[in-house]
């Protein structure tokens, strides 16, 4: 059997510019004798595509890591997000995409889009709010059992198999980023939901009596893909990237982080608290579309 190892870049059909590694593909032809098994491309943990017999490949291409491996960050990365407030028009597509991939019901989303107005005379604006993945995280400091922890790549995750449900982290978070499963999570009504193997990197499945929050989708990052909310935004308001390589992308456009923050006067929300968030905001100036009141219940 011929075993090819190739590192490969595939341009996904329509997502311009975005590079995706991967997808199962098979490679059979008339010139290959019939005894030989069909080969499939799979992605190795270090990001290479290798072809292995189909029988050896898992049914789906990627299996999220378990609670133990999830404590170790993706090596040599420092993830950041930039939110361009001038582009957000409260379309709520990021919330939908996040809810969909985290199996959340609309009543307890991880992402909120808030209507903000800094003072009476200034214009209101929409502020998408995720977990800020602080570098000095108040929530992690107070956790009595290390159920929530900060990784080397800057991401703050929750192990809901460790969480004791004391909710100290919720009190400690100045950004109200955390949600609690007060009862049986409504999504657990979904068929097969409880059989999904738990991974802190996907935050699925949620468990009663434990805390949840935006996780920056490390399962996607491990596959060299950006989080779901980034690609879902129709306005390209959300940028995501690696601070060490000074690059962020909104799915279409890829720019230097330092340049973006410098040119558009990027800031971090409540910098004075010293939490050192990894989410930056670009002020809501020079908007393409003027602010429009959208009723919050229009989302569905």
């Amino acid at each position: 059997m011929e075993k090819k190892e190739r590192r490969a870049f595939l341009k996904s059909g329509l997502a311009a510019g975005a590079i995706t590694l991967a997808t199962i593909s098979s490679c059979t032809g008339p010139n290959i004798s019939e005894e030989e098994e069909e080969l499939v491309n799979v992605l190795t943990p270090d990001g290479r595509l290798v072809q292995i017999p189909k029988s050896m490949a898992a049914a789906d291409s990627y299996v999220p890591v378990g609670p133990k491996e999830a404590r170790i960050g993706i090596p040599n990365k420092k993830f950041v997000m930039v939110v361009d407030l001038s582009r957000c028009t409260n379309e709520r597509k990021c919330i939908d995409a996040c809810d969909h991939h985290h199996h959340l019901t609309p009543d307890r989303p991880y992402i909120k889009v808030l209507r903000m107005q800094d003072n009476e005379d200034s214009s209101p604006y929409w502020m998408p709010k995720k977990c800020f993945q602080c570098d000095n995280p108040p929530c992690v400091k107070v956790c009595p059992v290390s159920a929530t922890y900060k990784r080397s790549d800057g991401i703050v995750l929750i192990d809901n198999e460790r969480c004791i449900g004391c909710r100290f982290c919720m009190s400690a978070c100045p950004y109200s980023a955390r949600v609690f499963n007060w009862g049986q999570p409504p999504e657990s009504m979904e068929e097969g939901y409880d059989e999904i193997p738990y991974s802190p990197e996907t935050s699925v499945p949620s468990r009663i009596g434990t805390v949840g929050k935006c996780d920056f989708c490390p399962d996607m990052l491990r596959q060299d893909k950006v989080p779901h909310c980034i690609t879902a935004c129709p306005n390209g308001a959300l940028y995501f990237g690696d601070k060490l390589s000074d690059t962020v992308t909104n799915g279409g456009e890829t720019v230097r982080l330092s340049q973006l923050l410098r040119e558009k006067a990027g800031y971090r929300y409540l910098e004075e608290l010293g939490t050192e968030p990894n989410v930056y905001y670009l002020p809501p100036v020079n908007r393409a579309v003027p602010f429009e009141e959208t009723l919050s219940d229009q989302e569905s």
Partner: protein
Amino acid sequence: MDLVDNPDSTREVGKSRQQIEQDLLRHVTKWTKNDKLWLLFLGVVILIGVFAYYRQLRYGLLVTAMRDYTSWGIYISNFVFFVAISLVGSLVSSILKLSNATWSTPLTRISEIIAIAAIICASIIIIVDMGRPDRFIYVIIFGRIQSPIIWDVIIIVTYLAISILLLYISLIPDLALCRDKLHDVPRWQKKLYEVFALNWKGEKRQYQIIHKTSSILCIMVIPVAFAIHTVTSWLFSTTWRPGWDSTNLGPYFVSGALMAGAAVIIIAMYFIRNSLRLKEYITELHFDHMGKLLVLLSAVYLYFNINEYLGPSFKMVGVEGEHITELFFGKYAYMYWLVQIFGLILPIVALIYKPLRAPFPIMVISFLVIIGAWVKRFLIVIPSLQHPYLPIQDVDESYLHYIPTWEEWAITFASFAGVLLIVTLIIKLVPVIPVWELTDNKE
């Protein structure tokens, strides 16, 4: 130490040793009909709470009114309240003893019993508040010493151990008394006295050991007691919530606790005195002294209260200002002002007058203080959580307010019943007033 073993001659009990022993052992042997009804009542209240907790275990904390913003509710405020009450043990048996206030000797045991009961129920109520009580053991297995919760666990266990020791040391001679004098008690009870009396014979060296160890504990319990409530205050002051983000919170909590503790002692004195017919031992003088003490402690608490609110209300910064406005003029204003007036100003003003320091009026005032202290803790915990930095939008209507559900009330009342049950059971086992400290000093 002199302070401990030399109660002065102010003892009003002009009775013989035999008479004292008879008076003080009476309530241990007899189970009156009222006692049984009282126990039945407490049992029913606790059972209702247990049923409510069963519902909470089954359906999750969804049965409470807590939601993502008000993520801590009356369980936590009740926990803070019980921790506050538990400081009473150190107040009477240590601070008063060390300051030579020997009149307080008959009150030491009551206060120590209440302290132990309160700290046990505080521990229970904090487990009730957990989303995953089944994982309580993780606190020990995975405990991170950086977390104030772990500090709280350590200090609660330590304080409970010290309180039990403190109670036990002063009990030894009385347990021996029970062992020798009580004959018509069940076998297990007799056995209990025998084992825990530690072969006490009233030898001089035995007394020496008791005096030495209790002196050490008396001193040690003060920093530990301050620590238990200060650490509890740190659960709040280590966050950025308005009203919690304060350097004043530790002394504010401790002073409030001492005040509430004094009020609890007064109430306990009143009911024990009346129901156990101990009027000669807990006299009007005790109420008078405790009244004065309550005035002092209330004044201290008032001082810290002013400190807590003046700065923020002068500056009115952002959410801190919103929080202050809510307390002073908003939906919590009626609670806030009732607490300040009846729970703080009234005791100071009223108890200055001697007639109001008589047993009944001071008991009523102390009740107001206690209710005020409980509501005060509600006001410390809940409104702060309702003023986050980012606006509360796009949430279910139930997230916007907090009105405790019947399950929360049932569990809260059950915890009160639990305190009373523990106190009652201990009083039915041992003399509530230290007999030996009264009799031995008569000789």
